[in-house]
């Protein structure tokens, strides 16, 4: 299943490389990755999703903690969370097709951010499913190019993961412990 991780890291040169190198070396396959600053100076936040089983998800968490520049890892797979992708889609649109495309964009609550005589750029935010859904209906009109930011995730409720946990538990997946 798709596992979602939030990783707080020190904002230093090469840290993204360290995380990527770890994932490659241990053969964890990243589906999506997004990196950006946080409200705290010197701290960046990565969100990445990996399609894997539960045991491997635990190992990913443990191995990330071994990186000296990693401050905190939070796995939000089984937590209530808000999940968003941002995408820009440049789609072919002339006088004839423009109205129906605009209608589609409206249904998906997207926004048009650029218009020419032959094209539109649509901005859409949402879950991966929603974006896939709109792509599907726009495709017959001719997609010229598209870009996606990768998924970002945030847990619901008033709390945020603390950046300095007291301790980290070595967790054993249920299926193994129950045996």
């Amino acid at each position, binding site marked *: 299943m798709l596992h979602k991780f939030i990783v707080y890291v*020190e904002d230093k040169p090469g840290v993204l490389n360290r995380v990527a190198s770890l994932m490659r070396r241990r053969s964890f396959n990243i589906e999506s990755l997004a990196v950006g600053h946080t409200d705290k100076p010197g701290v960046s936040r990565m969100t990445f999703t990996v399609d894997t089983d539960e045991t491997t998800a635990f190992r990913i968490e*443990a191995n990330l903690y071994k990186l000296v520049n990693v401050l905190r890892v939070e796995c939000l797979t089984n937590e209530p969370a808000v999940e968003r992708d941002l995408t820009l889609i440049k789609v072919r649109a002339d006088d004839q097709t423009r109205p129906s495309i605009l209608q589609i964009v409206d249904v998906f609550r997207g926004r048009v951010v650029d218009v020419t005589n032959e094209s539109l750029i649509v901005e859409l935010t949402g879950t991966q499913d929603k974006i896939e859904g709109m792509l599907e209906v726009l495709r017959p009109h001719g997609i010229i190019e598209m870009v996606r930011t990768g998924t970002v995730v945030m847990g619901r409720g008033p709390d945020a993961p603390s950046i300095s946990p007291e301790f980290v*538990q*070595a967790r054993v997946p249920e299926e193994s*412990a129950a045996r």
Partner: protein
Amino acid sequence: MKRSGAQIIWETLQQEGVDVLFGYIGAATLPAYDALLDYPIHHVVVRHEQSAAHMADGYARASGKVGVAMATSGPGATNLVTGIATAMLDSSPVVCMTGQVLSHLLGTDAFQEVDMTGITLPITKHNYLITRAEDLGPSLREAFYVARSGRPGPVLVDISKSAIQEIIDWEPDADLVHLPGYRPDLRAMPEEFQRAVDLINQAKRPVILAGHGVILSGAGQALLDFVKQANIPVALTLLGLGGFPASHPLNLGMMGMHGEAWVNQAIQEADLLLAFGMRFDDRVTGTLSTYAQNARKIHIDVDPGEINKIVKVDVGIVGDLRETLEFLLPQIEPRTHEEWNDHIRNLRGDSAVRDVRYLPDDGHLYAAHVINDLWHYTDGKALIVTDVGQHQMWTAQYYRHEYPRHLITSGGLGTMGFGLPAAIGAKFARPDAEVWVIAGDGGFQMTAAELATAAQEGIKVNVAIMNNGYLGMVRQWQEFFYDKRYSATPMRSPDFAKVAEAHGLTGLRCETRADVEAVVQQAREAEGTVVIDFRVEKEDSVYPMVPAGAALHEMIRRPSVTGTPIGLT
């Protein structure tokens, strides 16, 4: 006060307690070496940078302190790579400093520029690229801290010549370690301990699997106390040897591919495995699908990444092994496990007759006999450093390892050429120890140039070469699995005694069992480094052996005295 980057390097190393380092000078490190003359730190000039890393590694394993190696930029730095990877796989605390080109040349493919932090990313615990003198002090401090804490490992500090030459205002002792994300002192949750205690107290056929972690965390006494209470037999990994005394009645010996049959059999029959500071390497488990199928498993390791990496466990406890065992002990109920221990003792029975120690040499010189004799003549007290191959396994089997930090060997990476340089490093760490290298003719030649280093430094290590004219371990695989087609394994070597003499050292040769005692004693008494060329049986094999892909109990056994004569009979 005004300090150059070079001065900051050496003053910081002094503050870290460094009095010796191993390295090789070059253009990028020249200003650092110039300043070194003003500090009471001894520098050992190696003959190849790979050896510098092995020496620092040997120093670290013999002492428990951080070993230091230094190389120049480019090829000097890349030559360290094998040594760094060796230290990484065996959790050895090493700090490697490499020179780097001037900072404005970084990324331009300048002369002797190589992306060392990129190259070593997957084989270091952490690494640094320093371009400013002000970062030197804090980064070196952090490097030492990271290298020795938690699960130890190598840290690389790549230092631009610009930083070495820069002069800044610097206060000694003002540099702080600031690593907010680094947690070497992880602890498990209390309920994990309780589940472990319950499993241990309920077990009928438990076996302890003790690894390198016992030695690294200084858990030897804690393990003895634990075993005294619970009477659980102890099997050891290669790197765990010495962590639990060989003379202890519940010491089963080494497990795994070349473990004794009863050890592996006991593991396969166990109902509970207690993995203490070990990582279920494939050389230890055999085929995973058939590994200890009836056993529940408790894994204690300081590295959370090891839990459930290879073998799925029932309880995973992250933490320092010594602390964890001391915490568990009061809750462990006394047990004798008489039936189980008797059963294992019976399993030993039919192995004893195959034990090479009890077999006559019949005029042959078997490496296993030489190593067992060496154990005898050194009272089992020597600090043994091995290379990699058959002799390494025979050393694990036939030198009885009684004390921690008395066996230094490249386990995880299996690095040929490790022995001699690691022994030189170990000798610097423990000048009073009687240091013996046990090597094969192949591995010895990979770093034999370090005899010159030993001669230049005037230090004494004794080198016992098990010379069989083959890359013996691979030859053995060819014999068993490739129909004796000896591709690329026969090896013609120089006269090792003469090689030693060419270095101004003592060279000895031994061709019969009767002469073993005399040459060993002669080597012990001689001043300076001694090389002994033991001309051992050419086509001899290490038994038992679990072939790759087989279950742990499916071993190729040493033929008994009456059996078909393969190798030792």
